[in-house]
């Protein structure tokens, strides 16, 4: 009796463990919980009358992103680049100054809520974050309720901005990434047979896949296989790759982050399967995985608005500053997004004429009004102007790069 009871207890444990693992990274129950109790907006205590006109004061910018964990390269790039932009702006010595505070969310929705509350306790007035979409879906409703003006460098989910008037994106939305990828493949590869491998418990991956598939269908492109994986099965792709290969796929579309992508590249190589791999912004970082044989990434395409080898002066200055600060590390598009995000906030503050002693709500409303007419040329807009619609989605043109000789090259 006793023995079987222990066993069934343990089995139940195992089951619920795997259930939990299966649900991780999803939208999470925290997304819709009303905020409040633990977060105390410090900036709102002062009641200085609205002074209008010239912007001034030191604004507290908060960065939330994965500084450790599987997506750490994004968070650290965003934080480093935001710091560069903040230092540049402060060095100008204008009336508007920034102070940067940051918190780690480990690319986890629940941790991100703690990170947000932590920053609010420190008196955050404007949020530059979150870096990834999963956590953003948990943080954005809180920021909406607390009226914190939010510019996310890279959380590309459509739901991140949907219905939240205070949130603006620097990156394109998932629908844009998905459909633009399909467009790019259709225009540059003839009669290609496509397989898709995506992570179906991640709104980011699922969102891009849905829009890619929809656009591919209207264009009459051939998708021969679709395989999924989730948080608990992201270590073994041999079956998906075997299926893709036997379905005759010569291109695999990977709307996923670079960590599982590195496993896919390694396992495909071990099988002797050599399709063209096409990733989106999540593929950025594949060359930085410790111990990863980067020759496996040769010929991988990825959709990105930023390439560090671009010739224009702004990019060159940014890249050399970043390299001199961080051991010759080359910044990725997330860094560029974050750099632009800080400048977008700076431009919006000047356009709206807000001062740092205003309450979060006053700052937020004034900046939202200013965003409608704002147009900013940044590192990630390839010379064109970024503008925003009422939803907070950015309009600019994406381009693709291919990995050759260990760096990104425009094909």
């Amino acid at each position, binding site marked *: 009796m*006793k023995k079987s009871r222990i066993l069934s207890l343990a089995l139940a444990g195992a089951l619920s463990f795997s259930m939990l693992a299966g649900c991780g990274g999803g939208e999470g129950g925290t997304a819709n919980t009303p905020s409040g109790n633990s977060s105390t907006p410090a900036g709102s205590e002062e009641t200085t009358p609205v002074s209008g006109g010239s912007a001034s004061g030191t604004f507290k910018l908060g960065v939330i992103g994965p500084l450790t964990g599987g997506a750490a390269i994004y968070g650290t790039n965003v934080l480093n680049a935001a710091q560069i932009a903040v230092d540049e702006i402060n060095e100008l010595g204008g009336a508007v100054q920034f102070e940067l505070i940051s918190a780690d969310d480990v690319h986890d929705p629940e941790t991100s809520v703690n990170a947000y509350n932590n920053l609010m306790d420190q008196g955050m007035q404007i949020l530059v974050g979150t870096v990834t979409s999963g956590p953003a879906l948990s943080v954005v409703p809180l920021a909406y309720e607390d009226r914190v003006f939010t510019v996310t460098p890279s959380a590309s989910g459509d739901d991140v901005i949907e219905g939240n008037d205070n949130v603006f994106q620097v990156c394109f939305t998932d629908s844009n990434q998905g459909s633009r990828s399909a467009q790019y493949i259709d225009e540059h590869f003839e009669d290609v047979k496509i397989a898709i491998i995506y992570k179906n418990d991640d709104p980011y991956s699922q969102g891009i896949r849905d829009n890619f598939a929809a656009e591919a269908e209207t264009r009459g492109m051939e998708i021969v296989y679709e395989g999924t994986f989730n948080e608990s099965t992201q270590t073994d792709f041999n079956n998906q790759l075997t299926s893709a290969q036997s379905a005759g796929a010569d291109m695999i579309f990977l709307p996923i982050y670079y960590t*599982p992508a590195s496993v896919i590249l390694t396992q495909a190589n071990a099988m002797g399967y050599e399709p063209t791999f096409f990733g989106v912004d999540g593929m950025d970082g594949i060359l930085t995985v410790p111990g*990863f044989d980067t020759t496996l990434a040769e010929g991988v395409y990825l959709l990105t608005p930023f390439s560090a080898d671009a010739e224009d002066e702004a990019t060159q200055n940014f890249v050399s500053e970043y390299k001199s600060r961080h051991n010759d590390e080359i910044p990725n598009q997330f860094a560029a997004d974050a750099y632009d995000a800080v400048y977008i906030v700076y431009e919006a503050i000047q356009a709206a004429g807000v001062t740092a002693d205003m309450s979060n709500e006053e700052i937020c409303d004034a900046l939202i009004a200013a965003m409608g007419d704002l147009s900013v040329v940044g590192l990630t807009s390839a010379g064109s102007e970024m503008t925003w619609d009422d939803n907070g989605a950015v309009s600019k043109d994406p381009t693709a790069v291919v990995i050759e000789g260990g760096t990104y090259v425009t094909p």
Partner: protein
Amino acid sequence: MEFLLYLINGISMGSIYAIIALGYTMVYGIAKMLNFAHGDVIMVGGYVSFYATTYATGQLLGDNPSETAVGVATLVSVLLAMIVCTVLGVIIEGLAYRPLRQAGSLAVLITAIGVSYFLQNAAQLLFGANPKNFTSVIGGQLSLFDGQLRISNVALLTVVACVVIMIGLTLFTGRSKMGKAMRACSEDKGAAQLMGINVNRTISLTFAIGSALAAIAGVLLCSYSPVLQPTTGSMPGIKAFTAAVFGGIGSIPGAMLGGILLGIIEALAQAYISTQLSNAILFAVLIVVLLVKPSGLLGKYVPEKV
């Protein structure tokens, strides 16, 4: 032909589950406890081997090491991982489980879960949370039928290692003196002690063997699926535990059978039914098997006297 490929994928992943399951099953058979920290010992083994090979290729062997040198370095790293894991397993048993020998089994179970979290967080502190890419030295693939059937050498090695380990363990528990002591402890600790068997030492030995196996499983797992992070061992650990129950916990051939069947079911479910539902199908099969045969496929049904 595709079916064969899926089958081979399943068997090689299943062999890894089987090696891990052997660790669960031995500890359960002898100490009557579920060592949930087993999966995390695998992760430690992976890290030890990763750092040992990185150090060897980076510092000791110079710029262009010969293939033999790299091979030897890998072998040494596996041995090192086994030693570290063995010591770790014995320490865990001595510090966390031995004081609870007389306590209820629930207390031991909770302690095991605690040890599991401790190891994961300690690894995160020591090695960082950033995933490391474990470069497998066993490259290449075997090509059959004019290249229609390609099997990676890692997969072959995994299957061979699994079979060798199972045969070795069966011989050890069946023939050797220590093995007999283990079986005696498994049947009745009190009586074994009266016969002059040192029960504590026997249990420590069981943990040592289980942990050494975990180190091998760790290196194989990381060669097969190259991302190494502090949570690497937890999901394969849970699946291997399932495999051990599936095959009949406490039975060594059962663990092997359970592991390989689990791998095959998973692979075929992913290939022919749905990649989304593969885990659900896996556990559904487990439930059906346990309903029909409550002690698992090869488990012994031991009626308890009331």
